[in-house]
């Protein structure tokens, strides 16, 4: 079953920027993890969720997995362009204890 989830990524030195589009569920979360694992030497992942307005807890568990992997190597995940509902969701799920947020990709790259 199609989940209408897509992503594009860009590498800036050791920073990987992933821009998602669509529902971050199990399939969407897996795609993010796979894209992240393609770049073993990155120490910063910027996740631009401008075009993702819905996320479920299975998708969140994949994001936590990425956060833990980055933290093991003193890396960092930064969420950007968050919809208020998703920002509140991540806050309740405790993601901002181990990940940062920024308004835009540009400010996260600084």
């Amino acid at each position, binding site marked *: 079953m199609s989940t209408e989830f897509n992503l594009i990524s860009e590498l800036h030195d050791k920073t990987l920027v992933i821009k998602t589009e669509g*529902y971050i569920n199990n399939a969407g979360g897996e795609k993010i993890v796979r894209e992240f694992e393609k770049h073993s030497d990155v120490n910063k992942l910027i996740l631009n969720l401008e075009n993702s307005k*819905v*996320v*479920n807890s299975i998708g969140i568990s994949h994001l936590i997995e990425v956060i833990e992997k980055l933290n093991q190597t003193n890396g960092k995940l930064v969420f950007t362009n968050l919809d208020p509902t998703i920002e509140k*969701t991540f806050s*309740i799920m*405790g993601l901002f204890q181990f990940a940062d947020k920024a308004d835009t990709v540009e400010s996260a790259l600084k």
Partner: protein
Amino acid sequence: MEQNHLVEKLSLQSESFQEGFELLTKSNSFEELTKNFRHILRGNFITTNIHLFHKPTKDSAWNRIKSDGNASDSDSVILDKNHSLTVRYFEGEKYNASVVLPLSDNSYLGILFGGKLDKSSFNDFDKITLQILLQVFSSAHKSFIDQKNEKKLIFELNEKILQLNNLIDTGIELSRYENQNILFELALGRIVMLTNASSALITISDINSGPTEKQITFPQNISPENILSSLYKIESSFEFNYKNYRFVLSEKETRKGATSFNDLDEMLLQAVSRQVNASLENEYLLSQSLQKERIEKELALAASIQQKIIPIVLPKISGYELAGINIPSREVGGDYYDCFDLGKGKFALIMADVAGKGISAALLVSTLNAALNSYLEFNLPLSELTDKLNKLIYKASPPDKYITFLIAVLNSESGETEIVNAGHNPALLLRKDGTIEQIDAGGIGLGMLDLGIPYSAQSLSINSGDKLFLYTDGIPEAMNSAEEEYSETRMIDFFKDNSEQPVNEFIRLIVNDVKSFTKEAEQSDDITSMILKRD
């Protein structure tokens, strides 16, 4: 002496056991835990040939944990001969020792030790060290599992808080939307978040005709058929305003794949469905309230226009007394009366009733008033005037609207009066001697037909002491709560009995008599009357 040496060596090693435990407890995954343990074993037993296996349950097969060396999967049969928590030592075989260690999550760790680099066999110190390291691993694994369970518990607790929070936010947000498509899309997005559904659908259909009017899915590119044919699905529906709203959720997601929904998911779906229902009801009630408010404003405006049409003061006619009244049953009525001073002692008394009430009736009254103001200036014969009015009203009104109309043109000096009655209640002329004449000569109501049928006029003379009474059907047809009519008979009797009263008093008394008859019953029609009395 040898035992003292052993104790001394173990004492020196105790710090390294502690460090090993700390290293193991820092592991973030089972793979990392076993990888670190292999490093510790290699360091302690000076061998690179150590192979680890794992099996999730007692009866499942061993899975080799990725390692260097020359072990094969089939070597795990060696482990099958081990009892739990036993170490077997071998001489002159491929492996020097095998271990099966039961773990706190009911899984098992298997270890095969190959030959040491110095070719020596396991001595007592090695055997004690191995036992201690197995305990260290067992404790570290338990700590790892506890941490994992703790994380899972925290995640689940946060998930429940999130669900509660989302449910509250969803109720608030759904109540804000006026656009139904946005409302449904928001509801679908929220319900998949709440239940981990992989997709969702809303189907809207007419209760009576059945066919689907609209289908909205989340995500948008999924076909409704895919959702409806899903193995795992739940649904909830409600009916509102002759439409059925059906919500379907498909495939609850887990990390291991799709599964069936649980009772909580069904409750959450019903809760969101109810919130959408409430939102639609609120939207409907709000639109009704706004529409009512708009209509009331229009009625108030129409009433203010009509108030300007109904005369406040009737003209004084020398040698006569004249009085009239109009009491609309609703804010804007369909009755009309007036008296126009035509000059040279002539006066036109008008009594009319539009079929229907409200704004449309008021508009027709307004049209009639404007036309009378215009036509009366030309001093046309009454039958011609009425015919012109008929044509005008016929063109200006819908087929179900018409006006019953009566006009009486009085020459006040002579008392000569010409009357045309276009479908209206008969005018009553009470002679001084007490006889009553009913005047109904004329034709059909204004605007009913335009067939060129001429209106006929009736001429009569109003003499001293005569009284002409004009009225609308709101008086004889006034109804009490037992649905009995005031009646024409009672009205005529009242007219006869009270005709000597001053005209203003007569009008007041007849209205009171009608109201005393209808009592608490709501006024069903406009009450309008006019009386002319020659001194």
